[in-house]
Structures are given as structure tokens and as C-alpha cells.
């Protein structure tokens, strides 16, 4: 336990001293303001058109300036855009040791590699949760400022739960990126896999197999919310993906030759 506390302290110190908290927080703030901007337009379409915020041809059909719609969008935003930032975070926490050449100082030490890895995963999860909470709170403030309607307790409760579940699915979903960062000894491989997953996700979705593609599951979950349910298999696939990411990362750190 003492080793784990020390390892978590180390990871937190490295994270807080870097610019990554600022960058990821900025990323999520841009997301929050983007969504709020959209709601503002739904709320005041004529005004937005008159001051040139949107083109006269903008298609506003399908949206509404309600809390329900807004919170639904928030869940999707985490699942579609948030996942990219979480992957970045995961790749940085693991890949930096390789890219910066600091890995060797973590290898021949009397603290188990599993402990060091666990600390890294814990910090990534904590960091991701904090970003989600920040996104949620800022969005609530912006929503209230815009004056969205139909804010019943049920709507808030439901929206919060959707966001929380979507965030958890995303967090588990990105564990394999720790493995990609380790195998690729830096940031390039996770970036490449991210692009590949984007392309594959689209192809799979068009083919109608999206519910069985673990990296599409959070988005499908957020989109379906209130309208239907995903199969248990989808959630199971996300869980398996996450566990495979944890196991793969551990096995790589434990058994692969480390020349960096």
C-alpha cells in the first residue's frame, strides 16, 4: 500500500507539473462552450441570424432549447469528442516515459512494475472523471445562463446518469491506448490507432455492426438513451476491451525488452 501511495504521488506530481491538465481542461471547456453556443442558437434563432452568427440557410431542425436535448448532447459529446481527449491523456501518461527516456528509471527499482502501472491507470481514471465533472458543472451553468426550458428533476437525473455511464464506458474503452503507447514507445502508434478506429467505426456503423464495436458503444449508448437499450454483449465487449488493455500493458511492461 505504501508503494502504491508513493507511486500515485509520483504520477500526480508529474501530471500536475505538466501542461496536460491545462490542455485537457481547455479541450473540455471548448466542448462545453461549443454545445452552449448551439443551445443559444436554438433558443434565439432569429437573433443569431440577424447578427450573422449563423447563415440564413442553417438547418436547425431536430434540435430544441430544452434541458433534455442539451444533456443528451452532452452525453454524446463525451462519447464522440471526449474519447479523443481521454485517449490523448492515456497515451501521454504511458507514452511519455518512452518518449522522454525516463522509463529506465522505473524498471530496476524495488517497487513492482504492476504497482507503477496501477498508479498510472488510477491517475488517468481520476483525471478523466474530474474533466467529466468539470464539463458537467460548466455546462449546467451555461445552460442556466441561456435559460433552457423543461428542467425537471427527472430530466436532470436522467441526463446526469447518461453522462456518467457514457464517461465510464469511455474511460474503460481507452485502456488499450496505454498498451499502444507502450508498444509504440511514444505517441505515434496511439495516434495512428485513433485514426484507424475512426475509419473503422464509420465502416462498422454503416454495416450495422456498431453495437459490437467497443469503441462505438459509448456513442451508441448516448445516442440511444431514452429511446432503447444496447444489448448486454455491447457492455461486455467494452469491459473485455478495457481488461485486455490493462493486461496487455502489464504484460508488455513485465516481459518485453526495454531498450529505451
Amino acid at each position, binding site marked *: 500500500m505504501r508503494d502504491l501511495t*508513493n507511486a500515485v504521488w509520483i504520477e500526480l506530481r*508529474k501530471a500536475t507539473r505538466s501542461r496536460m491538465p491545462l490542455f485537457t481542461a481547455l479541450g473540455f471547456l471548448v466542448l462545453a462552450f461549443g454545445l452552449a453556443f448551439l443551445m443559444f442558437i436554438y433558443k434565439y434563432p432569429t437573433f443569431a441570424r440577424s447578427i450573422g452568427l449563423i447563415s440564413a440557410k442553417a438547418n436547425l431542425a431536430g434540435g430544441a432549447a430544452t434541458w433534455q436535448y442539451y444533456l443528451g448532447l452532452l452525453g454524446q459529446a463525451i462519447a464522440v469528442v471526449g474519447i479523443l481527449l481521454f485517449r490523448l491523456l492515456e497515451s501521454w501518461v504511458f507514452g511519455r516515459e518512452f518518449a522522454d*527516456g525516463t522509463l529506465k*528509471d522505473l524498471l530496476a527499482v524495488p517497487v513492482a512494475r504492476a504497482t507503477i502501472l496501477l498508479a498510472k491507470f488510477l491517475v488517468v481514471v481520476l483525471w478523466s472523471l474530474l474533466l467529466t465533472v468539470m464539463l458537467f458543472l460548466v455546462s449546467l451553468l451555461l445552460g442556466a445562463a441561456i435559460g433552457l426550458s423543461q428542467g425537471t428533476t427527472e430530466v436532470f437525473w436522467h441526463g446526469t446518469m447518461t453522462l456518467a455511464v457514457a464517461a465510464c464506458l469511455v474511460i474503460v474503452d481507452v485502456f488499450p491506448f496505454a498498451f499502444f503507447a507502450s508498444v509504440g514507445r511514444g505517441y505515434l502508434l496511439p495516434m495512428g490507432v485513433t485514426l484507424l478506429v475512426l475509419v473503422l467505426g464509420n465502416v462498422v456503423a454503416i454495416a450495422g455492426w456498431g453495437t459490437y464495436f467497443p469503441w462505438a458503444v459509448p456513442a451508441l449508448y448516448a445516442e440511444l438513451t431514452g429511446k432503447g437499450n444496447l444489448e448486454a454483449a455491447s457492455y461486455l465487449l467494452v469491459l473485455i476491451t478495457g481488461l485486455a488493455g490493462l493486461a496487455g500493458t502489464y504484460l508488455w511492461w513485465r516481459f518485453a525488452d526495454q531498450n529505451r
Partner: protein
Amino acid sequence: MNLPIETVDLGKRYGKVIAVKHLSLRVAQGEIYAFLGLNGAGKTTTIRMLLGMIKPTWGSAQVLQTRVRPGSREPWAAVGYLVETPHSYQELTVFENLEVARRLHPGTAPEAVSRIIERMGLAAYADRRAGTLSLGNAQRLGLAKALLHAPRLLFLDEPANGLDPAGIVEIRELLLELTREQGVTVFLASHILAEVSRLAQRIGIIHQGCLLQELDVDELEQNRRRRLLLRARDLEAARLALATAGYPAALLRDGTLELTDLRSLEHPDDIASLLVQAGVPPTQVLVEEEDLEQYFLRLVGMNGGQNHA
């Protein structure tokens, strides 16, 4: 016998390339053992195998009486190391980098950090970010990380890299003090024989993955080649006169005669008289001792430009 490092037939292959082969080393307690070789000779691969960072293809290694296994927690509490270029967390200060290293060695007292900062002459830089350090100070920080937890065994890969002459002397004194006063064992990898000959008691020479020779530093003196170099106006006549008198001389490309037999090395005056009597007086007589660089290059099969004509 208490051997901090012992390897048996240790070897590593990467695909078709054999980086290290048949390496059997025994390093005694309190000894400074220098592992000498050119770049790419297999020094760093060996150190990484000894530190459990790389799995050996053949053989095994014991460090502090513990069999080295990649990913194991033993015996690293008593081992310090500096492998290749020292890297630190650039955004953390010198103090914080050492605090990270301290927490990776549970049981090391918090005061150890300030103590090692003082010892390594980093006090003025303690609150500076590691990313702003000069090469020499980054090297000092790397050494500080290796020494922080008062290890019994040190692996140092090119420890003098980036240090100025005063720094090199300082580190040499420090290592000698650690071995003498605390019985610390040091395994040092380097490609500079002149540097390690001042520090190490024993030297192992590695070339293309093979241990060519292991010798005590005293033997180094005896093994170095001496030669007598002669110049004369008529080199061919001089060579003939020497050959007739039983002194085989070789004509070097730069127009010098080289004699390597013990008789002429011990009595260069006889050679001079002989040449004067033969009517080809020498214009230069010089007994030259092979320097460490030449000795090393000769051992690894590169004779350092001493080509015969």
C-alpha cells in the same frame, strides 16, 4: 565468495545480430570493475541484462546473490544505476526529480534528497526545472539519482559524459571514496581507457559482444608495447646493417625504422653505435611506449594507424 555480480555464459541476440555472447563475469565486493569497449560493443546491452531490463537469450546473471529476472523487485533496493544518457522529468525541479527517485526506493529517508543535492554540487540548482540544466548538471542529476539511496552496487554507463575536467576528478574521487570507505562495488562502462585506468582495479575489454581480455590495472603497464624508432639518411642501408647484426627492423610508412625486440629496447645506445660504425649514423633514436589508446585499439584489432610499409 561474496560476488556482487556474477554471470554465466550470458548472451543476447536480436534477430540475426548477436549483441553479447558467452559473457562470464565475476566482480568482487568493493571493486571498481571497468567494462571497456567501443560504441556498440555490447556494454549497454550487458548492463541492461544485469538490471533486468532485457531478457538474456542465453545464460544467467546474479546480482547481489539474487538471480536477475525481468520485472522482479529484487535486488534493486541496494542497486543504483545510470544507464546511457541520464533523462529526468523535464518539468519537475531537480529536488522533485530526486524526490520521485526516493519514493521509488521505499525506506530511503526524506533527508537523503538534500544530502545528495549537497554532495553532487547541485544546491544552486535544486529548485530549477531539470529541463533547463546544462549537460554536465543533467549528468550530475543522473548520478545523484543513482547514489540517492546509498546502494551497495553501482552500475554506471559512461559516468564522465558531459562533465568538465574538474567534474571528472570530483566524480572519480567520490567513487574511490565510496568503494574504500563503504565497500560499494562499482561496475563502470566506458570507451575511454585512459579514464578508467585511473579509477578501476580491473578492466574487462569487450569487443563485438565478446569479452576479449580481463586484466588488473597493473598488468596494463606490462602489456603495453614498447618500440624503438630510428631515422637515418639512408634507411635501407641502416635496415641492412641492423639485420646483419641480428636486429630485425621494420620500415614504417612514415620513413621510420621500428624495432620491437627486447635487446634493442633495453640498449638503444648499442644500436646507435652499431649504425655509426656501419657508416649510417642515426638522425633520431626514440624509445616510445604505446599509449593506452593504441593499446586498446591493438587489442580490439584496430592498430590505430601504425601500418607497416
